[in-house]
């Protein structure tokens, strides 16, 4: 058992050093941010072969837990803005569109296919068109400046996955997590993996994208303080909120290792901070952009933001309804066992919103929790939303198939489960992200031999997912043996370190 504070800190720090060094090795290929100013001519982009953008969208529908939100009104507005950005950059015919990703976090990202994915939270948080254009310009900056790095991040995938596994393992092996939301638990591991990913990606790329956004938005006549400055300030606030929550989590985690607080000197958080200390901070980016903004013509510094068209779209019937629906679904998912979770989730399923994966999964999970908590009267229509999503081709999310197949299998209806999985995998098999879960399912409910063969195919077709696919094909017997060996190794390591410690 890991109950020695110095020892635990030492182990965590050791792991952190390895990961950090591994991260640094692949940094340093980004664009020098000093070459981009608020008013300079942009450097020429690298030649490229574009990945298929439709496949990229399918990949996201397989990757993101709650899929995409296909809102024609909102997508239409954002894509008009994106077209203006590309035109300003001198490449109006470049491929790529903007999509809404069903993530409650404040997030936006770009892929090498030129697509930009932005969360509803950014749409709700942004205060003007200036800010939305700045966000899209930042992401387009990654496409424009860092195409090769976008591709390269695939290679680093397995390492980040290892880190998330470590975070989850630490959390699962503590007994102080009662009452801690599952989302927080997972997000802790995820947050760590994201920091590693950022380490790989490099702070220079983020800063270059900020300056790229400042350059483009300024030339487009948008305000600096309502645009780039505003999104960085929103981001900084959100990071502060999460740091406070992370600290509370770490304190709770540390308590479990300290044995009711008797070993209060343990600072598990130091291990985490050690990992993340060299990673880019939003404040640093804000400072750099603020200095760069000295070159912005004074008339644009205090320019009145463009608010009306943005609010007009955001407050329009369908978009407003979707944003509210998403909010209710997230309230339900925060704690599916909460007494009002199912009621909240049901509110997300009004009208056209019912077909969205976020609503279908929120309703299903909270309804199931309600039934399991003794409310049998809530059993009517279980899974109806999942079918609505599956039957709406543009809205289909891989996770909906997985959720439905898993439910049937757990209910002992294996043939029905296999039918659902067959249908889902037939649709999503060109998206690598679907493979690990499909492999695990077929291993559990068909044969591990089939799972092994699928894992080999996966490794060949999607090298970045080779490890995840191989792991999914591990039989229960193999896993038991691996766990036994891992425990032996851990004990050996602990004994060795404790000898040194004495």
């Amino acid at each position, binding site marked *: 058992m890991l109950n020695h504070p110095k020892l635990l800190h030492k182990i965590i720090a050791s792991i952190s050093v390895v990961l950090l060094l591994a991260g640094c090795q692949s940094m340093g290929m980004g664009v020098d941010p000093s070459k981009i100013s608020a008013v300079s001519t942009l450097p020429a982009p690298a030649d490229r072969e574009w990945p298929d953008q439709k496949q990229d969208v399918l990949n996201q529908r397989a990757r993101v837990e709650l899929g995409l939100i296909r809102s024609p009104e909102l997508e239409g507005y954002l894509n008009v803005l994106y077209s203006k950005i590309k035109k300003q950059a001198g490449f109006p015919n470049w491929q790529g569109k903007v999509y809404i990703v069903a993530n409650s976090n404040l997030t936006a990202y770009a892929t090498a296919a030129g697509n930009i994915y932005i969360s509803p939270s950014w749409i709700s*948080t942004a205060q003007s068109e200036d800010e939305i254009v700045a966000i899209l310009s930042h992401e387009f900056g990654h496409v424009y400046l860092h195409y090769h790095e976008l591709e390269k991040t*695939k290679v680093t995938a397995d390492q980040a996955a290892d880190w998330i596994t470590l975070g989850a393992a630490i959390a699962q092996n503590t007994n102080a997590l009662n009452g801690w939301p599952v989302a927080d638990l997972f997000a802790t591991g995820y947050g760590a993996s*994201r920091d590693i990913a950022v380490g790989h990606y490099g702070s220079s790329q983020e800063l270059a994208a900020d300056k790229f956004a400042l350059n483009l938005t300024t030339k487009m006549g948008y305000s600096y303080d309502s645009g780039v400055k505003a999104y960085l300030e929103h981001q900084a606030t959100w990071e*502060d909120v999460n740091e406070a929550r992370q600290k509370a989590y770490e304190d709770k985690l540390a308590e479990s290792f300290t044995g009711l607080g008797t070993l209060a000197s343990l600072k598990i958080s130091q291990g985490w901070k050690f990992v993340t200390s060299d990673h880019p901070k939003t404040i640093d980016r804000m400072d750099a952009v603020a200095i760069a903004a000295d070159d912005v013509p004074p008339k644009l510094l205090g320019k009145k933001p463009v608010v009306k068209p943005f609010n007009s779209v955001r407050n329009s019937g369908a978009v407003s309804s979707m944003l509210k629906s998403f909010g209710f679904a997230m309230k339900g998912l925060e704690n599916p066992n909460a007494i009002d979770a199912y009621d909240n989730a049901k509110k997300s399923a009004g009208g056209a919103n019912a077909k969205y994966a976020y609503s279908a999964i929120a309703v299903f999970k909270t309804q199931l929790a309600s039934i399991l908590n003794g409310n049998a009267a809530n059993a009517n229509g279980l899974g109806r939303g999942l079918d609505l999503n599956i039957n709406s081709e543009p809205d289909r999310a891989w996770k909906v198939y997985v959720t439905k197949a898993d439910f049937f299998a757990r209910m002992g209806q294996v043939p029905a489960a296999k039918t659902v999985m067959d249908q889902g995998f037939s649709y999503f098999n060109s998206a690598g992200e679907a493979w690990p879960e499909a492999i695990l399912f077929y291993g559990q409910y068909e044969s591990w031999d089939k799972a092994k063969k699928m894992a080999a195919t996966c490794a060949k077709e999607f090298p970045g997912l080779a490890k995840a696919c191989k792991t999914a094909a591990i039989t229960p017997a193999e896993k038991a043996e691996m766990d036994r060996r891992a425990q032996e190794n851990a004990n050996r390591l602990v004994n060795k370190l404790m000898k040194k410690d004495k």
Partner: protein
Amino acid sequence: MKKSFVVLSLCTLALNAFAAEQITALSPSSRTEIELFNKAGAAQSVKTLSASDMPFPVSVQAQEAGFLKVAVEGKTYWLKSTQVRIQRDVVASCAASAERAERVGATPGLAGNSCK
């Protein structure tokens, strides 16, 4: 510095954009002084305060033409928005942030996935 975070429910849009916003620092961090003006858009400042004399956090009372209205030392002044860092309301949560981004080629994201 005491921080009071305001994260609104996803069900509630930030309708009053400046109701809870606060100035938390000068921008960039290396800035040591802040100019105070008697009206928005004024060319000439009426006072200069050092960063250490600013009673952070300072509530934003109004915004106009790139200037922010604040109360400092019992008087009302305007200062340039570009010279300060603002803590802004955020409408987000970590209820569903568990993507599997670590497997796919993509930028870490503008705000990454800050949920930790």
